[in-house]
């Protein structure tokens, strides 16, 4: 360890001029050790444990009907919820950045509520609102729209969770947008619709996709806000995290491990995509 740090210290280019600050070895060492003990080693356990399963057993678990139904539901609901978040999120970001109206500051501050509100609280609150006797449920019930204990309920919960991701990735890009470009386009005769389609939309596209991917990734793993409203009926409203949870409760560790490993690989794949998108967005912004 000490030698590695020493070599790194020699290699590091340093900032031009001035003397180097102290504490590099200590802080880097502490960071690496803490990160390894708390995050890397425990995460590795999941892959070690799933490697203990034979290929046959592993495939058997993840191609089980109930598991496949769960994956389909989790993917489908997260996808629809992320798309809904994009639509509502874009509208919200646009209204917050471009228009001035009473209550704007309040709404702007409140957008982060789903980040701050514990998921279990969000879960029971949404379930109560959409229950057949609830504030919104009582209007939906006569129209035969059932939200609680259906996939629609899962989409509602995941949209709640995903919304701030889209708003907060798109908002700064919209704020930084140079209005003069729009003014120029409009004085050259471009219609508002043309400006929106050809000028604004391409500019906010990378950020929108990042927000979408963040909302989607969060939706795949989301647990607390969904379990109350979904009703957890196998084959119908059982999302992947809940299936893992049930397997653990039944002491089916191999099952939980295999499904967990697949989910984790998918999540990290998404994270990679998000990083690439953000890099793309930065590059676009830098070029603009």
């Amino acid at each position, binding site marked *: 360890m000490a030698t590695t740090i020493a070599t790194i210290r020699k290699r590091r280019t340093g900032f031009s001029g*001035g003397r180097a600050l102290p504490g590099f070895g200590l802080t880097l060492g502490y960071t690496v050790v803490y990160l390894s003990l708390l995050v*890397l080693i425990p995460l590795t356990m*999941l892959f070690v444990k799933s490697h203990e399963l034979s290929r046959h057993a592993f495939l058997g678990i993840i191609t089980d009907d109930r598991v496949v139904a769960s994956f389909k539901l989790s993917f489908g609901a997260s996808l629809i919820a992320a798309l809904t978040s994009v639509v509502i999120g874009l509208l919200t970001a646009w209204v917050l950045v471009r228009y001035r109206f009473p*209550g704007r500051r309040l709404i702007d501050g409140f957008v982060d509520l789903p980040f*701050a*509100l514990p998921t279990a609280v969000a879960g029971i609150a949404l379930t109560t609102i959409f229950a057949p006797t609830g*504030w919104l449920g009582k209007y939906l019930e006569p129209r035969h729209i059932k939200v609680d204990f259906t996939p629609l309920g899962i989409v509602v919960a995941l949209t709640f969770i995903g919304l701030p991701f889209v708003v907060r990735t798109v908002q700064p890009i919209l704020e930084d947008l140079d209005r003069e470009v729009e003014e120029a386009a409009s004085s050259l005769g471009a219609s508002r619709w043309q400006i929106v389609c050809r000028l604004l939309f391409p500019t906010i596209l990378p950020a929108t996709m990042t927000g979408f991917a963040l909302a989607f990734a969060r939706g795949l*793993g989301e647990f607390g806000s969904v379990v109350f409203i979904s009703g957890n009926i196998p084959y119908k409203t059982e999302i992947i995290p809940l299936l893992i949870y049930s397997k653990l409760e039944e002491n089916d560790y191999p099952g939980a491990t295999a499904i967990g490993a697949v989910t984790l690989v998918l999540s990290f794949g998404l994270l990679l995509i998000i990083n690439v998108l953000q890099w793309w967005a930065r590059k676009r912004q830098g070029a603009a």
Partner: protein
Amino acid sequence: MANGTLQPDKPAANNLSVNSAKNRVGGQKPSTARRPKPRAHTEPLALRVALILLVMALLTVFLFLPLAVVFSQALQTGWHGYIEAMKDPDSISSMKLTLLTAGISVPLNVIFGVMAAWCISKFQFRGKNILTTLIDLPFGVSPVISGMIFVLLFGARGPFAHYLSVHDIKIIFAVPGIVIATTFVTFPFVARELIPLMQAQGIDEEQAAMVLGASGWQTFRRVTLPNIKWGLLYGVVLCNARAMGEFGAVSVVSGQIVGVTNTMPLQIEQHYNDYNFVASFTLASLLALLALVTLVVKNVIEWVLGEKHTAGH
């Protein structure tokens, strides 16, 4: 870009012929051109009002209603019932456990966050980007999986099972497991706030302090800390909100022993499943208040930083 799609009601007031590959539009200018500045870069009033109302309606459903329903349900039997529900012994023990958990996890992650931010923002070294990415990892892990990895590690079939049972140490289905899982889930919050902030600040001020003879610790305490205090507070507030509100990960490792290993979110679930809605929403209202305080602090800090930013220019 075709000229034909221009809105027909706008009179041709001026002939501008700028030939750019991107904007080959000329000949027409919006009617608002009489004003000193062209104001066509916004929507008609009716559309603006409609969009504002639409967003307000959507956000009411998705943000304000969930918050309102928590308090309305908690107070459905009046203040008396609310206070009584607060005195429920299981609820009280869950509050204590939640405070204990956050009280350990948050300081641990603050120390880590400052350390990580110092080495990443003040030095150049190989593998820095990888390290930064790895710090973000817990954000990408489902809460249930975050709990599960510690069950695999410290559970009855894990590598330490023998050692733990010989020494009679309980981690899973006990308080240590809850603390560890919470620390994992809240791991990136402080580091994530500090790294970009300290990177933007550079190392000039610290170097100046060192040249003037300050020790490393003095430099950190007198120069760095005052510069990062708002960002640090922000990180702590977010970290704490998540630590107190974490449900999935804690749910897996806790075993949900009422009065012993139930944190507030778990006790909320317990009361809810027991149809004890007043008790459930009463506890939930406390966490909702915490969320509101978190939002207020966040906005105040952003405002303070914004003021500083404008003052600096």
